[in-house]
């Protein structure tokens, strides 16, 4: 069974530039999460989708971050403009609807300089 796919694996941008990350969840998983993990900390939930609807985006800095999940499958997370403090690993995860275990992708390591 294919896992959660993310791209790119690494990205370096200058502050005030924009960047986008892509995630393809495990087939059949209705729930998709985007987490931000700053070095030395636990993952922080940014946004959670159920199919193509947003369940929770209370921690998403909406002035600069946006996310969408087209047709309830793939998802993109965008940052515009980026700040130095956005340097982190961005993890995508998915789970079956009604079942808890979330499976994580390899993540995208973002460095803002």
């Amino acid at each position, binding site marked *: 069974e294919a896992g959660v796919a993310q791209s790119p694996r690494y990205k370096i941008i200058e502050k005030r530039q924009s960047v986008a990350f892509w995630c393809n969840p495990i087939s059949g998983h209705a*729930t998709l*999460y985007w*987490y931000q993990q700053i070095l030395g*900390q*636990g*993952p*922080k*939930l940014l946004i*959670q989708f*159920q199919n193509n609807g947003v*369940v*929770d985006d209370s921690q998403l800095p909406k002035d600069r971050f946006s996310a969408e999940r087209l047709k309830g499958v793939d998802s993109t997370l965008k940052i515009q403009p980026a700040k130095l403090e956005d340097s982190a690993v961005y*993890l995508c*995860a998915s*789970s079956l*609807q*009604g*079942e*808890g*275990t*979330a*499976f*994580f*992708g*390899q*993540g995208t390591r973002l460095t803002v300089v």
Partner: protein
Amino acid sequence: ELKVEQNPLFLSMQEGKNYTIYCNYSTTSDRLYWYRQDPGKSLESLFVLLSNGAVKQEGRLMASLDTKARLSTLHITAAVHDLSATYFCAVGPDYGGATNKLIFGTGTLLAVQP
């Protein structure tokens, strides 16, 4: 706001010794997960605990859940170097129908010394 705290944050163990990592959370929950993260890698699911008193074991790791105390433990038996990693607990708060929200703890960095 749900808070999930782990202790210790860092644990240096000798091979062959036993130790326990604690995960406390601040609101009711019926779901508790343990994950492992190796340096530079993503998170790997270890255990899912779904009821009060649940206990699960895999190799040298055993996890338990006490929902009344809002506490989960991850017990390590006779540690070996391969267990060196960061361990996270994650809680799914009981919001009466909200789906699968997961809040992670601070993590415990485990270093097993020969």
